[in-house]
């Protein structure tokens, strides 16, 4: 009986959930890393390196925001 379960749907559930979680975690962690290091480097006078980490943090924020918007778009459009 279980063989007739919508295996395709379950695989899709597993694949999409794992990829989304990993992407979200990666982006958020990069963001935290960027903000923390940028703050430390700015305080120690390394403005250029601080700017690089700030850009890294911004890219993390953008990826998280894009992921959230994409998720809502997919759900709303069924």
């Amino acid at each position, binding site marked *: 009986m279980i063989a007739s379960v919508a295996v395709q749907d379950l695989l899709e559930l597993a694949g*999409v959930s794992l990829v989304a979680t990993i992407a979200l975690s990666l982006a958020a962690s990069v963001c935290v890393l960027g903000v923390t290091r940028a703050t430390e480097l700015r305080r120690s006078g390394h403005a250029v390196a601080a700017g690089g980490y700030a850009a890294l943090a911004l890219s993390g924020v953008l990826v998280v925001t894009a992921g959230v918007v994409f998720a809502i778009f997919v759900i709303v459009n069924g």
Partner: protein
Amino acid sequence: MDGDLILAIVVVTALAFDFTNGFHDTANAIATTVSTRAMSPRAAVLMAAVLNFVGAFISLQVAATVAGGIVDAGAITTTVVFAGLIGAIAWNLATWWAGLPSSSSHALIGGVAGAAFVAAGPSAVNGQGLIDKVIVPALVAPVLAFCAAGIAILIAYRIIGRLRPGPVARGYRYGQLVSGSMFALAHGTNDAQKTMGIITLALIAHGNLPATGFDVPTWVIVTSATAIALGTYIGGWRIIRTVGSRIIKMDSAQGFSAQGAGAAVVLTATHLGFPLSTTHVISGGVMGAGAAKRLSAVRWGVAGNIAVAWCLTLPCSAAIGGLAYGATRIFGTGALGPVVVALSVVGLIAAAFGRRSQARHPLPTVEA
């Protein structure tokens, strides 16, 4: 006239279930946010209530599954739906009393399946639909959330491992505002729809909607969304304690990973039309985020109690649903049975809460 009265009782009972679902499952969305102090409890509950309300409007896939995929719509009556709701409410309140995060979704599905089984025999329950759409996803989802949260926290620790803990914790607390919001939205999209599905099922049984090709009426969507949002705002602090601090003592990165994994699993499941248990998903996520750090970080005794409650949910709510249906039939096929059962349940709940309140605040003894 009797039919209209039973339908009215069913709608009110379904909204009462939705309310209990909200306060029982609030923990899912905000427990980790509260326990890591990313938000104050009151603000977190308010956020969850608003996003549950919004989430209820943005997808109807699950409502369609509940209304059409698990019980034979042609074989059930409004009394069956009523009895199923009684089974679900009774189980929800019993597990809330014990502080156990069980699944409101499975309680509802079990209650309706049990009542349909007693009313019309085994053929009324779509066993294949139950396995495909409920039991297999129920087994897969917590494992999936466990693995996803585990991988997520390992990635997070790998990236932020050498940084000072203070700023990192602050950063993930901001992240939890996003992941908690997404999970609350996911909860609304998946859980409010179960009540919509049940009310729709009652409307089909009463003849207000066709058995196939129906649309969920707007008033059903609005009232269901309002009931779950109100229940969420009232909040279920007993279960918040269990999910937020009794399974593992978590840091904000773990809270973020658990909520992120939970939101991803529930939103994907909603898109595919699986009526998933958000409770199972977030509990699996919390355990995964704890176990990936250190296996002994998870209080496996608490996890075991939760797992036992999960296993008992479908059969117990089905048994109560079946009993409730039997009780209504003692009074014939009219509205008297549901009225008597509904009043009895309200009386029992009032008595139980009255005793609890008295135990907490005993009356002062008068000295002679």
